């Protein structure tokens, strides 16, 4: 009865001594336990803590709410009519977000909502310490979701030989020849950093959070401008 047990997994005297040796070695080495509540952990930028909402980017398209497996995203919106920009022009309608909430007591952090959002309105933030005493407080409304936005780390640098991001390339294309139209001056775009580039956040001494917040405010055109440009 004991012989098959002996053979499997190397028990017996050598195994016993090995156990003693292992514990003795651990005794002699300093422990490298993460002292979490006292020392903040350094998380990789891709950590999934909480979901941040960049409200200006959200078009209330409802894709995220429909794809969410838990149905824990609540969106209310209404349409507003924008009067025509030019006389005789057409009136336009746009969505205005009334409510955007994620119930983190239901969310399973699958990240699908972030994947499907066509307008980069949702982002992973590594912040994970948002536990509450009352489960109802885990329902984050849009102001709370927006507050997570500054904690979102900047996107990773592009590959060294990668193509220009499409929107940057488009904005820098020369106007088509022969056109009577003169290209209008457009606002400068913030170009994502590239591997090997001088890191903008490092150069200015800003923390990644501040850089992300600054970038978040700099890039998105407001729906007003977007609507006006098309006319």
């Amino acid at each position, binding site marked *: 009865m*004991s012989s098959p047990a002996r053979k499997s997994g190397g028990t017996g005297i050598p195994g*016993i001594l090995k*156990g*003693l040796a*292992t*514990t*003795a070695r*651990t*005794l002699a*080495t300093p*422990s*490298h*336990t993460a*002292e979490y509540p006292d020392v903040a952990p350094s998380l990789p930028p891709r950590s999934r803590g909480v979901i941040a909402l960049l409200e200006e980017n959200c078009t209330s398209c409802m894709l995220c709410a429909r794809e969410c497996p838990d149905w824990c995203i609540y969106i209310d919106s209404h349409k507003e009519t924008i009067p025509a920009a030019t006389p005789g022009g057409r009136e336009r309608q746009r969505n205005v977000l009334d409510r955007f909430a994620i119930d983190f007591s239901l969310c399973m952090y699958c990240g699908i909502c972030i994947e499907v959002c066509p307008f980069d309105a949702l982002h992973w933030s590594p912040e994970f310490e948002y536990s509450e005493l009352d489960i109802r407080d885990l329902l984050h409304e849009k102001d709370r979701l927006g507050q997570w936005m500054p904690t979102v780390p900047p996107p990773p640098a592009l590959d060294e030989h990668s193509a220009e991001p499409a929107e940057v390339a488009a904005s820098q294309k020369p106007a088509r020849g022969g056109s009577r139209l003169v290209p209008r001056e457009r606002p400068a775009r913030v170009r994502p950093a590239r591997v090997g580039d001088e890191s903008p956040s490092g150069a200015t001494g800003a923390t990644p959070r501040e850089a992300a917040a600054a970038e978040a405010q700099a890039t998105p055109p407001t729906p007003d401008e977007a609507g006006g440009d098309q006319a």
Partner: protein
Amino acid sequence: MTAVEVVLRAVGVLAAFLVLPLLVGQAEHKVMAHMQGRLGPMYAGGFHGWAQLVADGVKFVQKEDITPAAADRRVFRFAPAVALVPYLVALAVIPLSPSVVAADVPASAVFVLAVTAVGILGTLMAGWASANKYSLLGGMRAAAQLLSYELPMVLAVASVCLAAGSLSLGGIADAWRPAWLLWQLPGAVVFLVAAVAELQRPPFDMPVADSEIVFGAYTEYTGLRFAFFLLAEYAGIVVMSLLFAVLYLGGWHGLFSDQLGWLWTMLKGLVVAVVVIWLRVAWPRLREDQLQRLAWLVLVPLALAQLAITGVWVVVTS
């Protein structure tokens, strides 16, 4: 021996009995924490978590003292004392050096073995009187284990007594020579294993198995009474370690043994206690059948062989 001297010696033993187990307990906290790379036991208090034991003590004192309604009240309440006192008595006759010993009785080796065996009665009483089937099971498992391991332990000590030609611990330590380290090694291993099993320490803590059968015979105990059982375990480590040091490591033999003999015994005892703690960290718990197998198929034959070797050697050399 005058009455005053008797009182002084009794107080001395009592002080040692109250301090040494706590010292072992503290050492266990820290050694285990280091061996497992844990920081928890290093937290309470400032330096190295020195206040952990104090906090534990305060916690035990605060707890309500519960006696189950169906329990045999007198036996239930008496059991922790029965488990604890034998080790106090045993501590009184263990010599730290030829002069530093509370009571120098003639056959002290036999006396210590007999007295420490009484401790099992406390566990049995606790298991029986708790009116709880887990406790009863734990108590019976403990009884089965302690009876099995009593025999190899006595045989191992018998071998040393035979070699020294004395039944007194002082006489044995006097007769000790460094060569005994090799010659009595099988007996020493048997004694150490049996001692750990007697104390129901891992890997032989199957009757208690805190994570499996709700702390065996001590299931119904709370607060201070529970603490007494724990204290009995640590007092047991102290007694067994000192006994091992005196029997197999030569007790007070060492540099300046005339003046510092007692310190040598204490140091050797401390090393043995750390080894006992070490075994707890390194090895998994034995199953009931493995436990009995080890006692009857390994330890008893080993102890008998040691006894035979010692007998032949003594006859040949005398």
